[in-house]
């Protein structure tokens, strides 16, 4: 199974993959390309990945969610060039009840952002380009996130370098 895709994502297909009569709740997350970043107008994004590790890490994350919440999870992430508004990541998490489905879905997107080796290069409407570095924004948001986010999962490797 491949988690990285170079073609448009199809959420309906992911939902169909995880749906079953014994799973009464399906929670989805869809991430799309935002048309602005830190005051600049974004035209498109170029996603690149360390392919074999990204596939392995996505597999580990999905397995963790399955074991922790008894949830069935489908996950796909785009690579290549995406225009503003296009879907970059899609997740469908199914479980017997909604609490587990919501928790599993949330866990998967947070861990994908934290652990999967994917990078994006932004192309701005003014013709310039830049690599996205979320670490600065994350540091600024740390105090706020501590207030309003549910307790985050601990880093699998227990290292400061991961999950900054």
């Amino acid at each position, binding site marked *: 199974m491949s988690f990285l895709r170079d073609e448009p994502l199809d959420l309906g297909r992911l939902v169909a993959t995880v749906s079953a009569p014994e799973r009464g709740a399906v929670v989805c997350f869809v*991430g799309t390309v935002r048309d602005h970043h830190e005051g600049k107008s974004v035209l498109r994004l170029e996603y690149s990945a360390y392919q074999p590790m990204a596939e392995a890490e996505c597999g580990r994350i999905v397995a963790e969610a399955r074991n922790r919440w008894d949830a069935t999870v489908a996950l796909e*992430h785009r690579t290549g060039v995406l225009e503003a508004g296009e879907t970059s*990541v899609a997740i469908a998490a199914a479980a017997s009840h909604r609490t587990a489905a919501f928790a599993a879905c949330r866990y998967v997107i947070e861990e*994908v952002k934290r652990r999967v080796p*994917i*990078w994006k290069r932004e192309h701005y409407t003014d013709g310039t380009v830049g*690599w996205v570095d*979320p670490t600065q924004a994350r540091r600024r948001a740390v105090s706020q996130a501590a207030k309003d986010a549910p307790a985050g999962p601990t880093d699998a490797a227990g290292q400061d370098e991961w999950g*900054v």
Partner: protein
Amino acid sequence: MTVSSNPTVTVRVLLFARYAEALGDSALTVTVSAPATLGSVLKAIRSRPGGELLPERPLCAVNLIQARLDSPIQAGDEIAVLPPLAGG
């Protein structure tokens, strides 16, 4: 100088995104003294042109697994130096 008294370890290092741009290549072959650690490999990369742009403690992986800078490195390991992750 004999090989046995100066053992070395040669590894392949993959670079991505802005680090590949900084070093001008997406893959390097690096030879360091044994016993090698991830940190000693990074030190060797930092001495190359553009290598000074790497941060003090970059994210790294060894054979597709997250690794610490004190991780031991064996000949043939695949090392990856990863810029800040930006998936999602």
